[in-house]
């Protein structure tokens, strides 16, 4: 089962305040643990929303707005993608992450192709998605 662990933004991440060198070492160690356990699919940090944009879709039209965006706690600052047995294991890993006081992680399951029935999605679409995922979504190895 694949899970996304979302790191919520805060005033610091939005201000472009980088983690301290010590914090980066701790994060590196945690990432190595994930890789060693064979669960790490990916992990990234995001640049602040001031470097981003938002597209809104309504009735066939798009509107583009540049960042920054308010409400840091609704924004994301980073994420991991994990391949684990179940939600409990994903939450267990999230609890171990080297986060500071007040940090929040959101654990969300990623859909698998098997979530969708033939009624909901055409056979051809499912086949293509499955093929691509089999080729591309594999845990990182040391």
């Amino acid at each position: 089962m694949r899970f996304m662990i979302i790191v919520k933004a805060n005033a610091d991440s939005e201000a472009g305040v980088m983690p301290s060198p010590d914090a980066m070492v701790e994060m590196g160690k945690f990432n190595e643990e994930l890789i060693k356990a064979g669960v790490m699919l990916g992990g990234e940090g995001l640049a602040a929303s001031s470097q981003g944009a938002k597209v809104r879709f309504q009735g066939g039209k798009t509107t583009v707005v540049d960042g920054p965006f308010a409400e840091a706690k609704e924004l994301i600052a980073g994420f991991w993608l994990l391949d684990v047995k179940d939600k409990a294991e994903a939450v267990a890993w999230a609890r171990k992450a080297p986060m500071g006081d007040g940090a929040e992680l959101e654990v969300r399951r990623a859909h698998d192709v098997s979530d969708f029935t033939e009624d909901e999605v055409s056979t051809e679409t499912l086949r293509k998605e499955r093929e691509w995922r089999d080729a591309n979504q594999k845990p990182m190895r040391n």
Partner: protein
Amino acid sequence: MRAMMIVKYDGGFEQRVKPSREAFAVMGKYNQSLRDAGVLLALDGLAPSSEGARVTFGGSKPTVKDGPFTESTELVGGFWIIQVRNMDEAIEWAKRIPFMNGESVEIRRLAEVADFADRMEPDHLERRKALETEMYGKSN
């Protein structure tokens, strides 16, 4: 640069909108266009927040709260990670997403090794570079 296109919706969206078979087909075509252009690195759709949890840090140990998180104004519904020249190119790709129902897609730059160079030891930087290649090396 790598950009992340993040689908955001409010906590009530999952109850209001259920994608049709037609919508899936159209999205499948869009995903294929990203592959055909050689820009797609990763994508995922997320299951509803009712299957999720939030972990908050502070105090002696983290606390865990199960979803759903219907009061949120911006839940993550899914994402694509694409390889592009700049934000303008990422925005152009985002505008082509076949959404119609008031969805929002946030486009953000993914941090790169260069962003951390002043605060990572050289061997850690090398390790990070190697991981980045492995994470997305086998796309398309």
